């Protein structure tokens, strides 16, 4: 067995060497998350910029399914900008899966280059010429000055406005990006986070349910009693509602209560951020948050979720 063992070991070593010794010439997409529209591998952006871009991308996502993703990296290796952008886009799945209306902005600091690729559904809105002009007008000067925050914000706003035109949307995307919105009078007002807007109805529903239950308690007839200590004096049967905690004190000594069910209720009373989400106030700064705490069947508005769109490649880059 010894010779066979040595041969097998040599074969395994050779195979491992062949795999591990392949030069890392081609850089694979990295740092991509389906819960974020920003993959800032090169560390170019501030948290304010990330929040701005995320706000705009989420607003588009909720309006028409379109999504803008920004991917930064130091070097793309042996790839071309167009080829690498294609790989990143396909790995990320930007845009709606049916509309394919995603758009990727790739920024490679070390290569001193950038590129934008549209999803197949946006090819007619973002020809090579259109993208090239947008990038030249909004990104080139900040890029030269290494002001990546300004360049990214301007470029994303310009791209988003074109998408809004394409879908005939009426959105003040700059205000959206800043976390502001305009009311009918045109005055800027701080917007409540999207989750809190949807908290009103669930709260009302909860109050209605509580009221119904209270009425049911008050109107419950003295029906059949559950098992109790035959020696104990008579006591009314009190319904147990777990999310109301300890039941109402009976008027007469009661038998020992049955074991409590401490599970949180289906209306999210014990779960942070459930129906109500963030009850109010500004969304905390410092970047993006996911909607993972919400119940599974609930609405996930207000957070980015890659839609599964695809691209055929193409696009335009730095002139």
């Amino acid at each position, binding site marked *: 067995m010894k010779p066979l063992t040595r041969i097998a070991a040599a074969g395994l070593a050779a195979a491992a060497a062949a795999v591990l010794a392949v030069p890392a010439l081609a850089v694979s997409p990295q740092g991509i998350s389906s819960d974020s529209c920003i993959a800032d591998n090169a560390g170019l952006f501030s948290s304010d910029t990330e929040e701005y871009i995320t706000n705009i991308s989420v607003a588009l996502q909720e309006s028409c399914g379109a999504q803008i993703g920004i991917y930064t990296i130091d070097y793309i290796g042996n790839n071309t900008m167009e080829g690498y952008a294609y790989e990143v886009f396909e790995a990320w799945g930007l845009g709606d899966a049916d509309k*394919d209306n995603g758009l990727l902005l790739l920024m490679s600091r070390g290569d001193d280059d950038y590129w934008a690729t549209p999803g*197949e559904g946006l090819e007619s809105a973002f020809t*090579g*010429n259109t993208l090239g002009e947008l990038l030249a007008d909004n990104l080139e000067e900040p890029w030269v000055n290494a002001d990546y925050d300004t360049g990214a914000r301007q470029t994303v706003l310009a791209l988003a406005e074109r998408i809004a035109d394409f879908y005939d949307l009426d959105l003040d995307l700059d205000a959206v990006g800043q976390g502001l919105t305009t009311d009918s009078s045109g005055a800027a007002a701080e917007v409540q986070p999207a989750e809190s807007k949807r908290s009103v109805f669930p709260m009302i529903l909860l109050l209605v349910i509580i009221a119904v239950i209270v009425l049911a308690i008050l109107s419950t007839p003295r029906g059949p009693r559950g098992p109790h200590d035959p020696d104990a004096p008579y006591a009314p049967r009190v319904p147990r509602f777990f999310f109301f905690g300890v039941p109402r004190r009976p008027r007469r000594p009661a038998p020992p209560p049955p074991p409590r069910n401490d599970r949180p209720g289906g209306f999210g009373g014990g779960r942070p951020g459930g129906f109500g989400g963030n009850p109010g106030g500004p969304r905390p700064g410092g970047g993006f948050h996911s909607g993972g705490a919400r119940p599974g069947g609930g609405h996930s508005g207000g957070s980015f979720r890659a839609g599964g769109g695809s691209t*055929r490649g193409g696009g*335009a880059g730095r002139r």
Partner: protein
Amino acid sequence: MELEQNETFTITGPQLEVLGELEGRLPAPARRRPAAAGFFAVMVLLSVFGIGGARLKARRSEVMSLYLSGATAHGNSIQNDFSTQLDNAANLLRACRKVLGESDGTCAAVADLIARWDDTDTAPAAQYEVIHALDSAVDVMYNAAKAQANGDALEQIEGLDANYVSTQSILQREIAQSYTPAAQEYNALAASFPASLIGAVRGAGPVELYAAQ
């Protein structure tokens, strides 16, 4: 048990009665074994070349349809992309002529290839030859014009070249991902036996690749 030469061996059974009755209706020469063997051979050939050939031809049609008419969910197809690319080339040619002049050689080369496209068969190899030449000619023309242009003219030709390059990337990727793998798979099948023989008889030979011949 061995049969004597003049003895007959009869198989009986209700299922065979029908066949026996049919055989009885055949003319005498057809009831002989050589006739039966010949009939069997014909049936085999019909199965192999008939049914097998039909399936091979159907598969060939499927592969060619990817190149000639297959469209994505958004209505994009390889042939539509070719048309877009020729339009991009024509637009870039017009802009470059303003900078380089009507009689410029690089512009004339592009113009010739655009005209040649109209007479090119809708076939992978023929189209590849023209588009490949056009890509090179456009690149030469663009670089010549870019070196001389400035201001709005430069911006215009850069924008039109961006259109051309974008469509070029899309086209090459579409063909490489959709048509070429299917064509190579079919050609491997068509080269094997007996598909090669069937294909030769039924006109279902290998398909052209989008590449130089």
